[in-house]
């Protein structure tokens, strides 16, 4: 499991986090902490304000489609402590995915959340300006979803290496 050079241990973060925001953490691994999508603002605010965590900057925000659920991945950055915290939120409702917006804590989430909404169709509650960004208003689909093309028996991704013959992995 690759981990960034200065990434905090997920278990450690989870321990502190569950003490401060009880019930928010669902899963913790070496790499990341998984939190409840309804508690995003609480968790972020605590991570942002806590002196030890000091997650001053939302470095990166993106979504991953896992077929049955979505993951929102937050890479939080502490500039003074120089460490990184990876937080994930699992959205189980694949059809009407929705998560709290962390815009109240990080203004930098403005365009990143819009991008995720635009390309994955995940709704961010509390986002001030949630509109399509790259695609036009009224475009029916969300291209970064795995079921984008809706073709039966089509599995997005590369099934095997281009010049590899024979083996069918999946």
């Amino acid at each position, binding site marked *: 499991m690759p981990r960034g050079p200065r990434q905090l241990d997920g278990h450690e973060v989870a321990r502190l986090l569950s003490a401060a925001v009880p019930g928010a953490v669902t899963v913790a691994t070496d790499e990341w902490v998984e939190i409840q999508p309804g508690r995003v603002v609480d968790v972020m605010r605590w991570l942002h304000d806590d002196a030890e965590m000091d997650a001053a900057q939302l470095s990166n925000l993106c979504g991953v489609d896992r077929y049955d659920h979505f993951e929102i991945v937050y890479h939080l950055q502490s500039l*003074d402590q120089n460490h990184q915290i990876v937080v994930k939120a699992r959205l189980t409702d694949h059809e009407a995915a929705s998560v709290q917006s962390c815009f109240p804590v990080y203004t930098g989430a403005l365009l990143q959340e819009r991008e995720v909404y635009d390309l994955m169709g995940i709704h961010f509650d509390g986002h001030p300006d949630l509109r399509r960004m790259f695609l036009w208003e009224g475009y029916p689909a969300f291209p970064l979803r795995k079921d984008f093309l809706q073709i039966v028996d089509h599995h997005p991704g590369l099934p095997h290496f281009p010049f590899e013959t024979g083996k069918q992995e999946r």
Partner: protein
Amino acid sequence: MSAALDPIRVRVRVTSPRLAVTLGIVLVLFGAASIGIAYVVVSGMLDGHWYDFRDLGLGMAHLREWLNEVNAGQPAALSAFLGDQWISYITGALLGATGILTFFGLLLLILVWVERRLIGRIQVRKGPNRVGPFGLLQPVADALKLIQKEVLIPIGADRFMFYLPPVLVFIPGLLVWAVVPWAPNMNYLDTNVGVIYLIAISSTATLAIFMAGWASNNHYALLGAMRTVAMMISYEIPLSLALLMVVLMTGSMQLSTIVQWQVDHHVWLGMLMPLALFTFFFSSTAELNRTPNDIAEAESEIVAGFHTEYSGMKFGLFYAVELGNAVAVGAFVAAFFLGGWSLFGLETWIPPYLIFAAKAFGGYFVLVWLRGTLPRFRLDQLMSFAWKYLIPISLLQVLLVAIEVTAMRYMHFPDFVELSLVGAANLAFTIFIVRAWATFLGYRPEREQVLKPTMAKQMGGLRAAEEMRTR
């Protein structure tokens, strides 16, 4: 070695012997011609003859004499009807007008090339060099392209008002050339209200530009038009004040008299009144919409300003008249402040109109230079510069000049003493008042010093930023 290396290596071009020989021959011929001309001039062989091209007025005078002889042969009734010497009158008028028109047309053609070459040189590139030798035919190609382009009229534009402005802009651009004093006897319209004629004629362009912007039905154009009007009206005041100083000093509004005054006193007004020179030049750049005051057609902000919607030859007219006006500004700077056609006695040797043209193109070159170098002001900065700096300071300077002129009337020192006193006083006043006024308005140079970035050795966030700031 790959071809990609070439631009990196400095290639020393060996001068070919043929070029050296050619240059030598040209130099020798030039020297011989100069000596010949000098002999002819000194020996007085030319004086008073029509082929004395140092003074084109002589040729005209001969022509007029001949025409008057012709005139005398005409029926008296015609003279009673059309006035005395009507043939020479009409011929002179037509010749002058033709001359100006020809000059203006050729000038515009050449300027397109000159400006682009100069800017190219300033910008370490070559400029147009493909069409014809040295790209000299580039203006022709440009004109051909512009002529055959479709002239688009935006939907919702007022067609009549949209058609008119390129023409209306062109007319004042042409008319101002009428009063240019080329040489002692080379003024087409040597009116005694030359200065106010100049101001009046150039002020009419404002309306045309405003119409262009308004009629385009385009937001950029409208913004450009609004900016133009605000700026041109504001800068007409310092422009007029600068010219007022000239008029006060020379006691005349006639351009030939102004030049003659400078010749008689062996001084350039620009030396006597540097502030007026600066004010006039800067205001002119504003009136011309040229950098650093080209906010009316600020490319990076409002695309092309008032002429965004113009295409084809309509755009060409705007473009051409802008270039023509730039040289006109050079000409008027030369006439008002740089001694016109005089060059401290050399004008008896060199044709004065060539001296004048050199000065005019010098002024034009400075304009091109500025355009190639400076960024652009913001509208509010420009306006506050006009209203808060130029106008009050110019007003005070006008007062000072008036006092000096009055004093000169009552004192009877030699010219040289008087004028050097005046020049020194004006220079000292300029330096003093600019500093004092800037301080008065709150400009503190020490507060404006350039802050270089500080170097951080330690990485960090907000806390580190605070530490760096307090340190």
